[in-house]
């Protein structure tokens, strides 16, 4: 992908989350939602390097970015949040349970660390079937507090599985800072390497760096060497919901810290530095187009039918 294409993706994901967050305040999307504003470059950079829909992508509760970066329909996402039959999971899953298999986005789930194992299993299936496919799992550093990550990394390394573990380290699990969860001298890269996994430290807000590092890692992954990316980033909004923490008078992190990330390390601002002058000049038009498309899709999603009560038991088995 060109810098401009990557930039457009970043902008599309940002505007998608912003629109959803504004609509969310109307209390008509009745599903706990974890917005990813500020972390877009990780999903965009990684997914741009994949061979979709051939490869298989899995993600966690902060699910929208990977879904959209794979090409999942914004309208179907919006409809899922509104609880409509046209939702990507037919209104049965909500924000945390998304799927778009036709785009290679297999599933997201709400329980911390689950999908790390599931992606590892998909990679195991690819290896058993001698298929040239890789599995990718996005998760936060909060999932590194769960044992399932270590069981999965061990298994992936032991069996030489084509899986890429992508850890977005946004420094907070809900309201717990890293300092409350990891010893000061502990390190995620070391943890991955101790299992025999190749680990890369990445600026997760620099889409170009994420894209290039993923391309490099994937060369190893496709040869059966599992890899781990630790992508440094920052979550702008509260853990769950559309507000800033300072708006809710929460003090577990400061407004200054947020504003420093926004001012110095906004993925969209950083990406714009890679554009030519004429590309930069075209951004306003691009932005207006994106926002118009999203607004129209959101209107269609809202107008779509709600699941009928008679379908309550469909797909239990």
């Amino acid at each position, binding site marked *: 992908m060109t810098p401009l294409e990557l930039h457009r993706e970043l902008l599309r994901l940002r505007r998608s989350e912003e629109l959803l967050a504004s609509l969310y305040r109307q209390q008509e999307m009745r599903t706990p939602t974890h917005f990813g504003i500020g972390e877009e470059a990780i999903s965009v950079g990684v997914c741009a390097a994949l061979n979709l829909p051939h490869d298989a992508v899995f993600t966690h509760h902060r699910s929208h970015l990977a879904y959209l970066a794979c090409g999942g329909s914004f309208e179907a996402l919006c409809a899922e949040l509104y609880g409509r039959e046209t939702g990507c999971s037919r209104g*049965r899953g909500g924000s945390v349970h*998304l*799927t778009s298999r036709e785009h290679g986005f297999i599933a997201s789930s709400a329980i911390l660390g689950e999908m790390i194992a599931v992606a590892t299993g998909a990679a195991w*299936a*690819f290896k*058993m079937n001698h298929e040239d496919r890789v599995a990718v799992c996005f998760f936060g550093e909060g999932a590194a507090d769960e044992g399932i990550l270590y069981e*999965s990394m061990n298994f992936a390394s032991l069996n030489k599985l084509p899986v890429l573990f992508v850890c977005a380290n946004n420094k907070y699990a809900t309201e717990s800072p890293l300092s409350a969860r990891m010893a000061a001298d502990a390190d995620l890269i070391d943890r991955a390497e101790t299992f025999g996994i190749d680990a890369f430290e990445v600026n997760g807000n620099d889409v170009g760096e994420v894209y290039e590092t993923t391309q490099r890692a994937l060369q190893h992954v496709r040869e059966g060497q599992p890899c781990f990316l630790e992508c440094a980033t920052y979550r702008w909004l509260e853990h769950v919901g559309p507000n800033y923490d300072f708006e809710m008078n929460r003090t577990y992190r400061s407004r200054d810290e947020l504003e420093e990330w926004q001012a110095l390390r906004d993925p969209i601002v950083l990406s714009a530095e890679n554009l030519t002058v004429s590309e930069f000049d075209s951004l306003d038009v691009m932005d207006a187009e994106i926002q118009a498309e999203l607004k129209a899709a959101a209107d269609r999603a809202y107008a779509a039918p709600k699941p009928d009560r008679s379908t309550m038991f469909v*797909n239990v*088995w």
Partner: protein
Amino acid sequence: MRTLKYREAISEGLVQAMEQDPSIFVTGISVNYSSHVFGTTKEVSERFPDRVITTPAMENALTGICIGAAAMGKRPVIVHDRADFSFLAMDNLINLAAKWKYMYGGNAGSVPIVTRMIIGRGWGQGATHSQAIHSLFGHFPGLAVAMPATPYAAKGVTMAALAADHPTVILEHRSLFEIEGQVPEEPMTEFVPRRLLWLGRDLTIVATSHMVIEALAAQRALSEMNVSVEIINPVWIRPLDGDAILESVRKTGRLLVADVSHELCGFASEVSALVAEKAFSSLKGPIRRLTLPDCPAPVAQSLEEAFYPKASTIVGLVLEMLGRDVPEGLATIDRVDSFKGPY
């Protein structure tokens, strides 16, 4: 039909399923050890060595890994040498496998993983190597739960589970592995359980798993006392064939539920509630539940002897329910457990 042991029936079911479907593989912490899970995975290990894969002890991740493989078209069979180990896999089994098809609206496909787990019971296996946890799994929509008590059902559920579109938990009982019974030679993909194991008129015994063997022994002793009991064995805990139970109780008017686990919130209570709700007017007396004492399984032989109900316990209860005197010396009908330790 010829006679097979319970463990041979499971083995044959696995072999035939794996012959038919190359996507099936068997995995767990001991599946190709020399003991081959009571011999049940020996033949598949020899026939399909690449598809019988021992893993590290990682029950939770392994279940998630198998869900991922299933989402990509594989049909994994996970084996837990003891059912108790599956507690480590609860998140992936209950939160993900059981709900996958439903919560993605059918759009993410299905994950028909099969989890075999063995109930240890006896010879000092104790509190954490002996539990029957079918009531727990049976609670959750989306998961099929089977508890075969005969070689016929053991092969049947193995093959049916490997042909189904949903995840299945199969609870096998160690005390049943050497039991013999008639099993068809052909694949049993379209398995219909024989729910009525013994026809009778005075009282219905609904028995699960190993309690079926005890109930059949009790039936022989009772028939000598002119008592005719009917024995129903729900092979599937979920989906439960409630009609078979109701039909029987409407005929006999009395119900004893003999289960291999505890009473509170347990399967025996579920069956009792079903009958109390739907066949109350047929009942001639109170329903009785025969379950494990309300404490963890002890190790000492003197306590373990008293912990597990036996055929004589069933006979005593049945006679009591019918208002008959309970004779002395019933314990002579009880089987001596021939199991040699340690595991």
